[in-house]
């Protein structure tokens, strides 16, 4: 596996996962907390900064404003980044298990 992208931060990874369905910022915050059983609580400022960066990179896109809350969805480019990250995490996981548990 060649290094296509640097590792994502936990926050960005979860934000991208949350946007497989259309969500606004607060929705992202709630889902991430729920997915991680309360372990990951992203600050609103951090989410807003990440959304701006992800929009610039074309990994997510903003949908037409529904009322006052802006909503976002992941793009195909964003999905390919997540797929790559999953492979990277699997490699980390597999190597961790193999070495610590002596599993071949």
């Amino acid at each position, binding site marked *: 596996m060649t290094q296509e992208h640097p590792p994502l*931060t936990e926050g960005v990874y979860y934000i991208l996962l949350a946007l497989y369905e259309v969500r606004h910022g607060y929705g992202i915050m709630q889902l991430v907390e729920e997915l991680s059983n309360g372990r990951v609580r992203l*600050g609103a400022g*951090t989410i*807003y*900064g990440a959304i701006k960066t992800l929009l610039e990179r074309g990994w997510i896109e903003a949908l037409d404003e529904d009322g006052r809350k802006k909503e976002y969805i992941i793009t195909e480019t964003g999905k390919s980044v997540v797929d790559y990250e999953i492979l990277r995490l699997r490699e980390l996981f597999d190597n961790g298990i193999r070495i610590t548990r002596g599993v071949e």
Partner: protein
Amino acid sequence: MHKYRLMINPYAIEKWVNDMACKGWHLKKFTWIRFTFERGESGSYIYRHDELERFGTHYEEDYLEFLKSSGIEQVDRSGNFVFFRKAAQEGPFELYTDKKTKLGTLSKKMTVLLSLILLNLLIGITGLTGDFSERTMDWVGFTMNMLNLIVVVLFSFPLIKLIRVRNRLKRELNVFSD
């Protein structure tokens, strides 16, 4: 109730505002030095300070709207300094949970503080050298230059604190990503 504090280190001010809230005094208004508190339930809100990046832009409205939709209440604003709050019963409340943003913000504040310190140091020392080289003492000039040096000392303490916080965050980033 009014209290006066110089907002040099916003992190220290944020801690102070939260300590006041724990004693039942909630921030209502503030300027650079004047803070107005009103009586309320002890510890019912958590307060956070933020500094808007670009004053009066579309980004700013968008960001404030985003925070509002996240259930965060804007308490008051003075220039690009803003105080927000959220009910404590809704759980821990932080605006920024990633170290990189915190480091970026700290670096900006440190640059501003360091510029002010160097500017005052330069004016103070240049002025004092001139004051002592004159045959008759210029007491007004001397007082002004001493004030420059007092500002240098006053601003150096918060700068040292910010450097310590930044170094701690950097050390953590060497091992942990966020």
